[in-house]
């Protein structure tokens, strides 16, 4: 179970949101750009320190006090692939595996490589591949460690629809297989809906709704939400 109460001051408002996700389930954070969704994810990941609140994953307290990043069983992916440019694609994917774990993960790494179509670029330098390829490598690197909690912060932005569809299918498959808990941020409802049966709607740092997509569409909590869910 992920239990996060995040309080973090931003320039225009203070983010104050509680997120609860039972183990193995997924939840979306939906809202307009600048609503505070990424801040919540960054605070849960440990990329930013919350000003208050509490974050725990099962019996592991992530904050407070802030647990060192390397002890957090978290996979965190953002719009930027953040690959290590001095390493090859293969070295990036294996980066999170401890020495002893390399052999044990061999089959799993091979599956990731095939499913994410990384064979052709496996030995390339990671600063010499395209943006779409980089994002696939980042997915593989994150999943290589089989994290208990996966945090996705609009990792599909800028990717073509075909690739997004592929990634969504792969994530769904692996989540079923490994049962990781997942929290996803996106401002595109159709993407979130594919990954998460329910969503928390954020407006100016506050949760204004927490429901399934059917419920959100049937009875939007705010005018802005109605607008965000309306077809173009």
């Amino acid at each position, binding site marked *: 179970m992920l239990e996060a109460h995040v309080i973090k001051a931003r320039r225009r408002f203070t983010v104050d949101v509680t997120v609860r996700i039972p183990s193995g389930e997924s939840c979306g954070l939906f809202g307009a750009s600048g609503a505070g969704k990424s801040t919540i994810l960054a605070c849960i990941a*440990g990329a930013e320190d919350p000003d208050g609140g509490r974050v725990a994953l099962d019996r592991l307290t992530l904050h407070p006090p802030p647990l060192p990043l*390397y002890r957090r069983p978290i996979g*965190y992916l953002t719009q930027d692939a*953040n690959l*290590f*440019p*001095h390493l090859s694609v293969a*070295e990036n994917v294996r*980066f999170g595996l401890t020495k002893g774990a390399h052999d044990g993960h061999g089959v799993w790494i091979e599956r990731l490589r095939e499913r994410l179509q990384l064979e052709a670029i496996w030995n390339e330098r990671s600063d010499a591949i395209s943006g779409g390829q980089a994002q696939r490598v980042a997915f593989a690197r994150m999943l290589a*460690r089989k994290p208990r909690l996966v945090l996705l912060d609009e990792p599909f932005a800028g990717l073509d629809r075909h690739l997004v569809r592929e990634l969504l299918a792969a994530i769904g498959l692996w989540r079923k297989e490994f049962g990781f808990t997942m929290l996803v941020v996106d401002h595109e409802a159709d993407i979130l809906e594919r990954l998460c049966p329910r969503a928390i709607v954020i407006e100016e740092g506050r949760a204004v709704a927490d429901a399934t997509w059917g419920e959100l569409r049937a009875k939007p909590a705010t005018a802005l939400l109605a607008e965000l869910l309306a077809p173009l």
Partner: protein
Amino acid sequence: MLVKRTAAAVFAVALLYPLAGLFVPVGPWRWGDGATIADAIRVSLVLTAIAMVVVVATGTPMALYIARAATRERLWWQAVLLISVLLPPLALGILLSLAFGPHALGAFLERFGLKMTNTPLAFVVTQVYVSIGYYTLGAVAALDGVPRALEIQAGLLGHDRWSVFGRVTFPMARLGFAVALSLAWVRALTEFGAVVITAYYPAGIPVAMWTSLENFGLPAVMPLLVVFLVTALPLPWLAHILAQRRLRRA
């Protein structure tokens, strides 16, 4: 391309023009005191190397701290470093000899047998003071080039802070570190103004040049200049060569 390369060549020629002085007739070159010169080279290389160990060991963690500090705090630390860089060498030498002299910290240190004037220790301490600001400022600039997001990602991939530094931060900043170390090395090795006050003995190459000039005139200084270039250049150049090679295993 040709125009740019020509412009770069003109720049390089202008930069190296002072070396034309080596070809100005000053009379037949001669060695002053051979043993003294050999000693000066040994003193300069060994003690500067020791100083660089201290500079890197203390300057690197400081640079890491400054590079990741909030902007306002970081400006204060940088001001402190700039003070050490901006002090004229002679003034720094005088201040060091007073601050470590018998009326200050020197009396305390002498109780432990640590003499802070005209000793190898005084030489190394002076070199550390004249060069550490250059190294640390350069290292901060190098670390600024490493996105914090990559370090966070490396941490979340299970690496503790030392491992993150060794596998991500340093490999990505290595060229900047090499430049910083080169500057510090050259600054320390060539130091005269401060060292001549705090550690006239044991004489390093700059002091040996000065005494050769005083005792034997320009003909005795010229070979020393060549020796100085030959001994000072390889280490920083090697650092640049190593830094520019791609690290196969980070």
